[in-house]
């Protein structure tokens, strides 16, 4: 059923939900943006609907709700390890269709890859219910339509924001009773039908072509531009890599934690082993690694759609204005040329 709910009433509902739920949504952090005098929009706990930034794209994705930037996984003394704990509340996330698809991609990585579910992801992920935020036109770096992530029915509730009210489509029986007294509406979420950018997934048909792709000069062209900062990985909803490190609480201390921290495949030390050996030593090779993971490797591994959901945050965030969508289109053109040569 769908309803029209005033912000005032919605805030009462949020308040009552908070006894069982932590509610996450894109929130404005004033003057915390990447340029002076700009704001940052990222996911945080909310307690009223006015806090939700619904008319801008968030700089960071909601992945940090289920896969925190840093997370204590074990606590240790010198003689034992203990599992860390999480809060006992359930989680509600306000997010867009692309990000719902993105979290499904994370599910594949954390829950299915290797046939053993990641304990730490799973314990947070199982708590999560989605509140879809309707998206009308997207933004200028979005390419969700090309990636097929513009639409979804995978949500408990969907919302459309008006000035002082919202329309809400409630699909989840758990939430239905809360809205019994609200005015019904015929709202169903609409989806982005077209983006300013169209991206073509490269049609890599075999390993031979893949190896030719490795050697394309286009990767080298990024060597002087890419700073290997890893900002693209940090904002990406589908980037799931991490490193674990041990942290001791005090100097000469005997207690501490084993901590999981986001890792970036763009960083030079991503593959570095003790003794100094590492792989992919140029920024171009590392960009190639990331690009192919997003549009080829993941699809090959899971026999499913590509990993990238087209949120475009990597383009928004790159300090060198490297456009991922442009890179993939360049790659597709090159692959088409390779395929053409082969078909002759």
């Amino acid at each position: 059923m769908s309803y029209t709910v005033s912000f005032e009433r919605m805030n009462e509902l949020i308040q009552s939900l908070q006894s069982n739920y932590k509610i996450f949504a894109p929130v404005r952090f004033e003057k915390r943006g990447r340029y002076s005098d700009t704001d940052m929009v990222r996911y945080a706990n909310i307690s009223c609907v006015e806090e939700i930034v619904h008319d801008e794209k968030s700089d960071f994705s909601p992945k940090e709700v289920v896969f925190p930037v840093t997370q204590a996984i074990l606590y240790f003394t010198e003689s034992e390890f203990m599992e860390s704990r999480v809060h006992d509340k359930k989680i509600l996330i306000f997010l867009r269709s692309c990000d719902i698809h993105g979290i499904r991609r994370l599910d594949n990585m954390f829950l299915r890859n290797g046939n053993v579910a990641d304990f730490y992801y799973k314990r947070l992920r199982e708590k999560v219910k989605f509140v879809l935020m309707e998206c009308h036109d997207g933004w200028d770096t979005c390419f969700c339509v090309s990636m097929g992530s513009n639409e979804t029915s995978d949500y408990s509730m969907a919302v459309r924001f008006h000035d002082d009210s919202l329309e809400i489509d409630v699909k989840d029986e758990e939430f239905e009773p809360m809205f019994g007294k609200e005015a019904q509406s015929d709202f169903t979420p609409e989806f982005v039908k077209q983006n300013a950018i169209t991206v073509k997934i490269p049609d890599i048909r075999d390993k031979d072509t893949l190896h030719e792709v490795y050697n394309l000069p286009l990767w080298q062209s990024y060597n002087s531009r890419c700073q290997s900062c890893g900002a693209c990985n940090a904002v990406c909803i589908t980037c799931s890599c991490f490193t674990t490190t041990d942290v001791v609480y005090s100097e000469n201390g005997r207690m501490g934690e084993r901590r999981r921290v986001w890792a970036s495949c763009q960083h030079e030390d991503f593959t570095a082993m003790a003794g100094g050996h590492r792989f992919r030593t140029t920024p171009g090779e590392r960009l190639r690694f990331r690009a192919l993971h997003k549009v080829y490797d993941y699809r090959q591994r899971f026999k499913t759609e590509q990993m990238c959901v087209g949120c475009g945050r990597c383009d928004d965030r790159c300090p060198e204005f490297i456009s991922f969508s442009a890179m993939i289109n360049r790659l597709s053109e090159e692959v088409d040329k390779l395929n053409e040569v082969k078909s002759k």
Partner: protein
Amino acid sequence: MNGLLVHETRANHNEMIPTAHEVLGVVRETETEFTLRVKTDAEVHHGQFFQISLPKVGEVPISVSAIEDGFVEFTIRSVGKVTGELLRIRKGDRLFLRGPYGNSFPIHQFRGKDLVIIAGGTGVSPVRSTLRYFYQHRGEVPSLHFIAGFKDDNSVLFREDLELFRQRFDTIYSLDHDKVPGFEVGFVTEHVKQITFTDFSDYNVVIVGPPVMMHYVALECLKEGASEDKMWVSFERKMSCAIGKCGHCKIDETYVCLDGPVFNYSVAKSLLD
């Protein structure tokens, strides 16, 4: 939850928690390398690895260099933070382990066929348990050629085992430059031609060592008539989880921790970092 649950039986199992194991002995192999014998009843296959942890220091993937009743051995080069600290471990101390992880050398496929094992430096360590197995079960393979290469006399690992292997295998031990009794001089690649693959009715070749060494030894074997699908290599990569989540060991759609560390050469040759 809709379609979320995976492997119900292990649903609440936390694979990241290591357990304490007693160190039964320490053997100093070289100035920087040492072997730890660790008590465990885990079922381990030749070529697999464990995550060894030291609280406060961290965790590293180390392959088993021996698998025996009630214990495994790890041979470690002390070059990093964790391996440097492991150097201080003594008999009777406790180590934290999780594993074993990864696939293993296909011993069942090796049985009844000639076997060639070529290893360089610390690459001898992941093949040592296989060698020890066939030393104890010599009748299972018609012949076993073992070529081991080390940098110099001071880098030679497993001296006792090497002497035992001489008795039951066709061995060539080589040092890059040093002239020492019992050792040839030169890189392992230079000795591959002594193996006539065409004399074998069927065979397998195991090659383990640094990436460059494996690459050139494989090419040399191919030149001598070996076929790709009979060759096996083992990869070493940085890992944080060993269960296919952390992403560090990924090469195209392959995860070394899950799909390796052992690869048939026909697969390995197309794994480009």
